[in-house]
C-alpha cells in the first residue's frame, strides 16, 4: 500500500502511532539516581516501522519525538530529534520490508540503534546550537542504553503480532512470524 496521508486509514494509523511515540517518550523509567532514565518511545518507533512500513516509521518517529521535545521545553532540540528518530524509523522499516524475517527484525533494531547513537552524537557535535562536542560525548552512553532498551521493540512487535492477528491484515508490511 502506498503511503498517502490523504488516505483516512493511513492518516489514522500514523497519527495514533505518533501520539503513542509522543506519549511513551514522555514516560521516563529511572535506571540510575542522577539524570539516568530510559523512555519507551523507541520501542513504539520500532513497532510502527515494523508494522506499518518505513514511511509511517519516519513520520511517527520524527514527529512523535519532535513534539515530545516541544511540549517538554526542549523545543530547540526538536529538529535534531525529528531527523534522527525519523531516520531511525525509516531505515528500520525499510530493512524489515526488504527482509520480512526474524533476522530482519534484529537487523532493523541494530541499524536503528546505531542511527540513534551516531545521529545525536554527530548532530550535537556539529551543529553548535545543539550543545557542542562535550554534551555530544557525554550523551553517547545514555543513548547507547536507550538504543539497547529500544531494541525490545522487535520483541514487542512479535508479541503484538501474535496476540493481535488483525495487525497482519491492517498493517501494510508485516513480516510473517
Amino acid at each position, binding site marked *: 500500500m502506498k503511503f498517502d*496521508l*490523504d*488516505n*483516512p*486509514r493511513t*492518516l*489514522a*494509523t*500514523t*497519527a*495514533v*502511532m*505518533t*501520539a*503513542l511515540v*509522543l*506519549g*511513551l517518550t*514522555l*514516560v*521516563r*523509567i529511572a*535506571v540510575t539516581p542522577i539524570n539516568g532514565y530510559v523512555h*519507551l518511545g523507541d*520501542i*513504539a518507533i520500532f*513497532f510502527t516501522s515494523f508494522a506499518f512500513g518505513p514511511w509511517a516509521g519516519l*513520520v511517527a518517529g520524527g*514527529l*512523535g519525538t519532535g*513534539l515530545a521535545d*516541544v*511540549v*517538554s*521545553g*526542549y*523545543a*530547540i532540540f*526538536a529538529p535534531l530529534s525529528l531527523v534522527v528518530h525519523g531516520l531511525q524509523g525509516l531505515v528500520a522499516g525499510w530493512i524489515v520490508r526488504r527482509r520480512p524475517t526474524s533476522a530482519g527484525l534484529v537487523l532493523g533494531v541494530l541499524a536503528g540503534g546505531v542511527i540513534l547513537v551516531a545521529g545525536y552524537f554527530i548532530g550535537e557535535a556539529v*551543529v*553548535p*546550537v*545543539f*550543545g*557542542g*562536542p*562535550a*554534551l555530544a560525548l*557525554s550523551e553517547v552512553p545514555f543513548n547507547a542504553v536507550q538504543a539497547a*532498551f529500544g531494541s*525490545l521493540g522487535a*520483541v*514487542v512487535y512479535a*508479541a*503484538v503480532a501474535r*496476540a*493481535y492477528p*488483525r*495487525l497482519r491484515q*491492517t498493517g501494510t508490511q508485516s513480516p510473517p512470524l
Partner: protein
Amino acid sequence: MTAPLSFYSPADSWLHRLDPRPKLWFSLLGVLICVLTTRTVVLIGVLALTHAVLLAGRQPPRSLVRLWRAMLPILVMILVLQPLLAPGEGPDLWRVGPVRLTEAGLLTGLHYALRVAAGAFVASLPVMTTPVNTLVYGLHKAGLPYSWGMAIGLALRYLGTVGELYTTISEAQQARGLSFSRGGIVKRVRAAAPTLIALIIASLRLSDSLALGLAARGYGLKRQRTYWRNISMRPVDWLAVAVITLAFAGMLPFLR
C-alpha cells in the same frame, strides 16, 4: 504520563493575540542567529531580547522559570564537561594529571551553554504564547500541506486519549499485583512489557475507529478545502514581521 503537556500559558496580550506566523518567523530567524554567531555577546542579546518580548507580552514569569528549570540539567552538563574536555590555550587555573581547567575552556563552556539557552528560549516563544491548535493552523497557512497539519493535530489530540488508556491499563495491572517501582532494571523493564503490549493493541483499535470516523466525514475525497474559522494577517501582524526582520537583520554585522 505526568509530564507537563504544554508550555503554553494563556494570557490576554498583544503577544498572545499576534498571528502565529510572525512568532514562527521570530523563532526561525532567532535560531538562525544562534547557529551562525560565534560571539557570546550576541547570544546574551538574543536571550535578553526574548525575555523582554515574553515579559512585555504578559507571559507569566513563572513559565520562564519553568523553562530554565527544564534546561538546567543540560546546561550544567555543558558548563562542567566542555571546559574539561577542551581546555584550550592559556595558563592552568587548576590541574589534576591530564585534566586541566583554563579560562578559555570555561568561556567556551559558557558560550555553548548560552547558545543552547538562547536557542531554547527563541524556539519556545511560539509554543509558550500560542495554543497548539492555532500554531498548527499557522504552520498550515505558512505552507504546510493540510494532511501533515492534520497528522500533527490528531497526534496532539490523541496524546490525551493514549495517556488515559495507559493510566487505565497500568492501574488495572497494578491492581492485579504488577509493580513498576520495585526490583532492578531488568525487573522494571519486564514489568513494563505487558502494559506496553496492551497499550499498543488498544491504540490500534483506537486508530480503527478514527479511520472510520475520518472516512465517514469524507476525509481525502476533495482536495479543495473551506474553513470554518480562518486566520489572516492583519496590518499589525505584518508590522511585527517587519520589526522582527529588521531587528535580526540589525544583528547581522555583529555576528562574528
